[in-house]
């Protein structure tokens, strides 16, 4: 009993934002989850994936839902390969993806981006679904998801729809998901040589000033360059991609693409970096990420006879 009294005292000493209360609902099936969301009044029910963004938003009074809907019982903690495409359930902890050897080999850029999210103990809970749902302009995963042409499978009252991630993202804390819709899974259409690079003040648990994702996809346009750390959210830079005309662009082409990326990106100055610093970073990082991606391509079979 005395420890409970101490508990109350400790809680009462905390900043006001931390004294929160809500009702947790833990539906057993996706259908039930969608039904509960559809029945809730606007802004009253938040969706909980791993909670690493939402719980902090609640503590800091940026969100004050009366009810929190947990996705814990959803059958979405899976990872499977369908040919060379990877399907990841939205509630799979990032840590599981990170420990998968095939992910590391076939989607090296995705693996790198995942390893940059917080710490291992954070990744034990944080999910892909939550990263997309939060839509942070500083996210380390979104540039890579965009560069890899990831598709988002969305479940709602009228069934399932699927869109490229680029069309789902809007701005910080805003996606085009309807109030009763949930992200069920993410689909990475193909294995791809890819690279993710970031720049931060501290290496761990800090927010990236800039993130650069590059990938070489089997489908045209092959080269993809996406940036994070810009407003209102991560985006592809097709102008920079267009400079790259072959699987192994020359140094000059890489340099031109990097400069184009630095010129086109909508950076802003904030407490993490100035706009001009971000541009200079990006010019260097895009060049390095392209070269790393090229180095990750399977070696051309030197002995093979030309086909014609």
């Amino acid at each position, binding site marked *: 009993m005395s420890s409970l009294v101490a508990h109350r005292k400790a809680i009462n000493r905390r900043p006001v934002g931390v004294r929160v209360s809500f009702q947790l609902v833990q539906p057993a099936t996706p259908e039930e989850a969608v039904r509960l969301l559809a029945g809730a009044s606007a802004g009253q029910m938040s969706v909980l994936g791993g909670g690493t963004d939402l719980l902090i938003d609640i*503590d800091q009074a940026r969100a004050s839902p009366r009810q929190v809907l*947990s996705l814990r019982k959803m059958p979405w903690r899976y990872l499977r390969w369908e040919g060379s495409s990877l399907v990841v359930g939205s509630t799979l902890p990032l840590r599981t993806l990170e420990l998968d050897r095939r992910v590391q080999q076939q989607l090296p850029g995705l693996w790198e981006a995942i390893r940059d999210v917080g710490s291992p103990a954070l990744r034990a809970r944080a999910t892909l679904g939550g990263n997309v749902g939060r839509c942070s302009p500083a996210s380390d995963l979104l540039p890579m998801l965009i560069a890899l042409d990831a598709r988002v499978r969305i479940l709602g009252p009228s069934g399932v729809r699927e869109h490229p991630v680029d069309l789902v993202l809007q701005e910080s804390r805003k996606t085009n998901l309807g109030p009763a819709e949930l992200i069920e899974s993410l689909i990475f259409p193909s294995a791809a040589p890819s690279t993710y690079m970031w720049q931060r003040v501290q290496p761990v648990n800090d927010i990236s000033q800039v993130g650069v994702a590059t990938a070489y996809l089997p489908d045209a346009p092959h080269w993809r360059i996406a940036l994070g750390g810009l407003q209102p959210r991560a985006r592809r830079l097709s102008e920079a991609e267009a400079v790259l005309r072959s699987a192994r662009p020359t140094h000059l082409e890489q340099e031109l693409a990097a400069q184009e990326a630095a010129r086109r990106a909508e950076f802003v100055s904030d407490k993490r970096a100035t706009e001009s610093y971000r541009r200079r970073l990006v010019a260097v990082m895009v060049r390095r990420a392209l070269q790393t991606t090229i180095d990750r391509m399977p070696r051309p079979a030197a002995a093979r006879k030309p086909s014609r």
Partner: protein
Amino acid sequence: MTDAALALHINGQSRRFASVPDAERLLDTLRWRAGLKGTKEGCRTGDCGACTVLVGGEPTLSCLLLSREVGDEPVTTIEGVAAVPIGQAVIKAFAEAGAVQCGYCTPGFVVALAAQLGRSKSPPDVESLVDGLEGNLCRCTGYRAIERAVALARKAVQ
């Protein structure tokens, strides 16, 4: 809203707590209801690792986990880790290396390191073990002594 009871498996025991609010974090349930004060609260925002416990064997931040989201996964705190040989070896290594100054961060480090050492028969190299502790902050030691403790602990369990 009345707070319902909650059952958890903690350090090999079934524990039942009366009236736990839905918004309560595992960190608070462990410290204030289970009386397991070894798990520390540093930042409450996922940044420091002082609150690290094992959930289903994986190092997890108990400050960012609702107690009701744990379900039937076993929870192991520093008290549980300290009761098994690997945990004891890690604690001894920290003491011998002088890796404990104020000690506030130590439980988190020990839990995270013991989990890595317990995962496979042959422990990973020191560098990757240290990498695995990247989410644990220490304001006192400057990390050198902790790196020495990692090497010592690795040797001890080999």
